[in-house]
C-alpha cells in the first residue's frame, strides 16, 4: 500500500529522496539516469539501489517492515533514520504501521533529541599545508539555544579523504586530484576540532548557526547518522568537504549552497547561506568567531595598557622580570590581564613544534603567579573582525582598459577562479596574504587577442609581527608557477616560469606594512633572456583612507645566465571600494615598458 502511494506521488523522483540517497545525474550524455555518489554497497537496500531510485525507495519501504532481529540497531528503521522520518511525513501510514523498533544507538548518538540546532563551522585557510589552503568546513550539532554557551562537548561531523599514514606527497597529490581516495564523514566532539584548528594549527574558526525548524534539524541529524560509514570517492577540487557538507544539508535545505562550477570552495557556502531567507527569516541566525590561540594573544595584548604591554614583553624576554616591583605594584585585575596574555603567548609559541617544552616551562612561572591570585573571570573586548561571508567571493572577472608605452591602448580580460589577493577585503582570510589559482589574463589590441599570463598557483604571505614580541611573525615567503609575457614590451613572447621568494615584513603602524623580498626565478629562455634570475623587491602596503588600499613595490631583476642586464621593476596597485562584489583598481607598472591600467572587477 505504501509502495503504491509512493508510486502515485512519484516519490522516487522527489528532490528530497535524491538528496537522501545522494543521487546525481549521470555526467556522460550517452547514459541517462542517475547514480548515487555513495560507493558503499551497504548503503543501499536494493541491489540496483545505487542507480535506481525507484527500486531503492521500494526496498526501503519494504525494509521498514522487516522483522526485528537480534540487534535492533541493524534494522532499516535504525540504519536509515532520515529516510524513515521523511517517508513518515510524506506518506499516509494509517493502518499499515511497521514494527516499532527502538533504535538505541541512534538515540544515544542523537543525544536523545537534545540537539537544538545545526551550525556550519569554517576553519580558515592554513598556508603551511597545501591540503588546507582554502579552509575546511564541518557541521556542529548544538545542544544549547545560545551560540556563546559551552559547546565543547557538542557532536560534530567532518568530511575528509581517508589517507593512509605516511603517504608520500606525490602520491597524495595525484590520488587526491584524480579521485584515488575514498572519503567519508567522521564524528567527533567539537572540542577536538577546536583543539586541532584553533590551538594547534592556529586557525580561526567561524560558526554560522542555522535557523531551521525542529523537524529539519532532526532530519539533518538523522541523515548525519546515515552518513557514518558511507564512503564516497574523493576529489580535492570538487567532491571535497564543501561539496559533501552542502549535499548533506540538502536533505533539509533546497537552495544550492555552491555555485555551478566544477570546483567547490568552502567559503562560498557561507556567501550563499547568508543570503538565503526562509519564510521571511534569514537562514543564518548568528555568526561568531572562535579565535585561534594566536589571535587570542593579539586580542588580549592590544587590550592591555602601554605599561602592561611593556611588562609582557619584558617577561617574555627575561622571565626573571616576573614578580618584580613593576608587577607587584599592579592591581590584581591588571596582574591577571597580564598573566592571561602571557598564557596565550606561551601556548601560541608552543604550537610551533620547535621548543614546545621550553615555552611550557616558561609558562609554569606564569601559571604559579596566577594561582597565587584569586579566581576571577575577566571580560575581554569582543572581536570586531569581519566574518568570511563579508569578504570578496572567490571567483573574479576583471575588465581593464590599459595604455602601454610600447603597444598603445588595449583591453585586458582576467578570470581568476580562486581565491583572494593581497589588497582584498580582510574577512576570513589570513592578513597580508594572497592565494590565486588558474589566474588567467588575455589582452585585446590591434584587433588581435593575445595571451598575457596564467598563474597556475600563486601564494604570498608576509607574516609580519603584530606585537613585536619574540617569535611573533615569521619570514615572508611567496611562490608562483605559470606562464606569462617576458615583460610588458614584448607581446606574444610567453615564458614558462616558477619563482619563489623569501623576505621579511614589518607593520610600521596599524595600516602600513613594509617588506623586502629576495626571489629566485627559473624560466624558459626568450630571446637570450636567460633562464635563471634573481629579483630584489622592496614594498609598502597601506590603507591611506577607508576603501583605498595600495601596494607599491620597486625592485630589480638580473639574469645569471642571460644577456640582459639588470632590469628595474616597478608596480603600484590601488584597490578602491569597500563592496565585496566589485571594486575598481588602478595599476601602474614598469617592466621594460610602462603601463597604466584601470580595471573594474566583479566577484561572485
Amino acid at each position, binding site marked *: 500500500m505504501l509502495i503504491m502511494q509512493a508510486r502515485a506521488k512519484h516519490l522516487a523522483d522527489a528532490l528530497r529522496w535524491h538528496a537522501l540517497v545522494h543521487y546525481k545525474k549521470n*555526467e*556522460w550524455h550517452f547514459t541517462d539516469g542517475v547514480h548515487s555518489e555513495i560507493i558503499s554497497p551497504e548503503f543501499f537496500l536494493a541491489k540496483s539501489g545505487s542507480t535506481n531510485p525507484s527500486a531503492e525507495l521500494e526496498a526501503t519501504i519494504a525494509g521498514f517492515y522487516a522483522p526485528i532481529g537480534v540487534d535492533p540497531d541493524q534494522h532499516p528503521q535504525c540504519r536509515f533514520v532520515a529516510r524513515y522520518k521523511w517517508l513518515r511525513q510524506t506518506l499516509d501510514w494509517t493502518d499499515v504501521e511497521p514494527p516499532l523498533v527502538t533504535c538505541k*544507538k541512534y538515540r*544515544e*548518538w542523537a543525544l*536523545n533529541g537534545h540537539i537544538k540546532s545545526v551550525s556550519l563551522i569554517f*576553519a580558515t585557510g592554513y598556508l*603551511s*599545508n*597545501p*591540503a588546507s*589552503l*582554502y579552509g575546511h568546513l564541518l557541521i556542529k550539532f548544538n545542544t544549547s539555544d545560545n551560540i556563546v554557551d*559551552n559547546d*565543547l*562537548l557538542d557532536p560534530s561531523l*567532518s568530511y*575528509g*579523504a581517508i*589517507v*593512509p599514514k605516511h603517504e608520500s606527497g606525490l602520491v597524495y*597529490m*595525484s590520488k587526491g586530484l*584524480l*579521485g584515488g581516495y575514498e*572519503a567519508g564523514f*567522521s564524528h*567527533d*566532539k567539537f*572540542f*577536538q576540532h577546536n*583543539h*586541532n584548528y584553533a*590551538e*594547534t594549527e592556529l586557525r580561526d574558526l567561524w560558526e554560522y548557526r542555522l535557523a531551521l525548524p525542529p523537524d529539519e534539524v532532526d532530519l539533518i541529524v538523522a541523515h548525519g547518522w546515515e552518513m557514518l560509514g558511507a564512503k564516497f570517492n574523493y*576529489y*580535492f*577540487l570538487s567532491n*571535497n*568537504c564543501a561539496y559533501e557538507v552542502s549535499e548533506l544539508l540538502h536533505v533539509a535545505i533546497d537552495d544550492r549552497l555552491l555555485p555551478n562550477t566544477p*570546483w*567547490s570552495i568552502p567559503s562560498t557556502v557561507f556567501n550563499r547561506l547568508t543570503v538565503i531567507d526562509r519564510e521571511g527569516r534569514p537562514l543564518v541566525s548568528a555568526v561568531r568567531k572562535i579565535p585561534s590561540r594566536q589571535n587570542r594573544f593579539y586580542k588580549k595584548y592590544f587590550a592591555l595598557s602601554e605599561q602592561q604591554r611593556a611588562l609582557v614583553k619584558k617577561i617574555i624576554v627575561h622571565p626573571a622580570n616576573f614578580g618584580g616591583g613593576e608587577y607587584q605594584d599592579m592591581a590584581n585585575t591588571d596582574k*591577571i590581564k597580564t598573566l*592571561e596574555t602571557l598564557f596565550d603567548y606561551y*601556548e601560541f609559541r608552543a604550537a610551533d*613544534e620547535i621548543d*614546545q617544552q621550553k615555552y*611550557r*616551562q616558561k609558562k*609554569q612561572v606564569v*601559571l604559579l603567579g*596566577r*594561582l*597565587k591570585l*584569586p*579566581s*576571577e*573571570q575577566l571580560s575581554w573586548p569582543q572581536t570586531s573582525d569581519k566574518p568570511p561571508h563579508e569578504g570578496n567571493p572567490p571567483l573574479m572577472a576583471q575588465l581593464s582598459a590599459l595604455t602601454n608605452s610600447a603597444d598603445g591602448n588595449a583591453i585586458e580580460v582576467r578570470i581568476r577562479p580562486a581565491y583572494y589577493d593581497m589588497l582584498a577585503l580582510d574577512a576570513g582570510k589570513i592578513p597580508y596574504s594572497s592565494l590565486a*589559482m588558474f589566474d588567467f589574463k588575455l589582452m585585446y589590441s590591434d584587433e588581435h587577442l593575445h595571451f598575457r599570463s596564467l598563474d597556475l598557483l600563486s601564494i604570498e604571505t608576509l607574516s609580519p609581527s603584530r606585537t613585536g614580541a619574540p617569535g611573533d611573525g615569521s619570514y615572508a615567503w611567496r611562490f608562483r*608557477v605559470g606562464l606569462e609575457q617576458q615583460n610588458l614590451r614584448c607581446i606574444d613572447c610567453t615564458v614558462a616560469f616558477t619563482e619563489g621568494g623569501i623576505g621579511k615584513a614589518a607593520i610600521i603602524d596599524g595600516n602600513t606594512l613594509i617588506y623586502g623580498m629576495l626571489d629566485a626565478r627559473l624560466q624558459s629562455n626568450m630571446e637570450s633572456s636567460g633562464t635563471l634570475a634573481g629579483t630584489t623587491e622592496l614594498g609598502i602596503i597601506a590603507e591611506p583612507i577607508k576603501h583605498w588600499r595600495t601596494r607599491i613595490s620597486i625592485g630589480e631583476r638580473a639574469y645569471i645566465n642571460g644577456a640582459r642586464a639588470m632590469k628595474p621593476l616597478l608596480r603600484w596597485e590601488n584597490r578602491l571600494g569597500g563592496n565585496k562584489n566589485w571594486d575598481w583598481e588602478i595599476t601602474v607598472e614598469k617592466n621594460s615598458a610602462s603601463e597604466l591600467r584601470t580595471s573594474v572587477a566583479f566577484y561572485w
Partner: protein
Amino acid sequence: MDKLKIALAALAFALPVQSFAETAKEKKPELEKVSKSDEKLNPWTDCGIGAMLFDETKWAAVTSNIIWDWGITATTSAVSSKHTCEGKKVVAAFFINQTYANIEEETANGNGAHITAMLNILGCNSASQQNIIDSVRADFSKAAASASYAEKTKSAKAQDYYFILDEKVSGRYAQQCQAI
C-alpha cells in the same frame, strides 16, 4: 568530466596540490577495554590513553571516533562502568589529556569552558562545580609548584591533574557527581 579535465591539467603542469578539505584523520587504535577490580583506575596505563595521545602535529591532529562511541554514549545511557575503560572517568581523562593547556589555565583562573565541560562529562551538577574547581585549584597549586612540574610531559601533567580531580569527584564531591 569537468573535474577530470581540471585534475589532468593540474597534474600536467606539476602543480602542487590544493585541497579544499582536510584529510580524514586516521583512527588511532581502539582503547583497550579492560576490567579492573582495583579501586584506582589509571586511564593512561590501564586504557592506553597515553598511546592515543593526540599528537600536536601541524599536519593533522588526530581524531578518535571510538572513545565517544563507548564513552559518552555510556554516559547518556547511564551505563556506568566504574572499573572499566568504558566509564566517564576515561572520557574525562581523555579530554584532560588532549586539552591540558586549557585545563591548567582555566584551573588557575578558577573558571572556563574546558573545566566546565570536564565536570559535565563527570556528571557533576552545576551547583557543585565552583566548589570542586576551588578544591582542585588548591591542590593543583601545590602540584604545579613542585620542581619537577616544568620538566614533565604534557601527558604526565594531565595524569597528575586527573588524579587530583578524581580524588575530589570520587570522595568529597561524590554525591554531587552522581552519575559516576
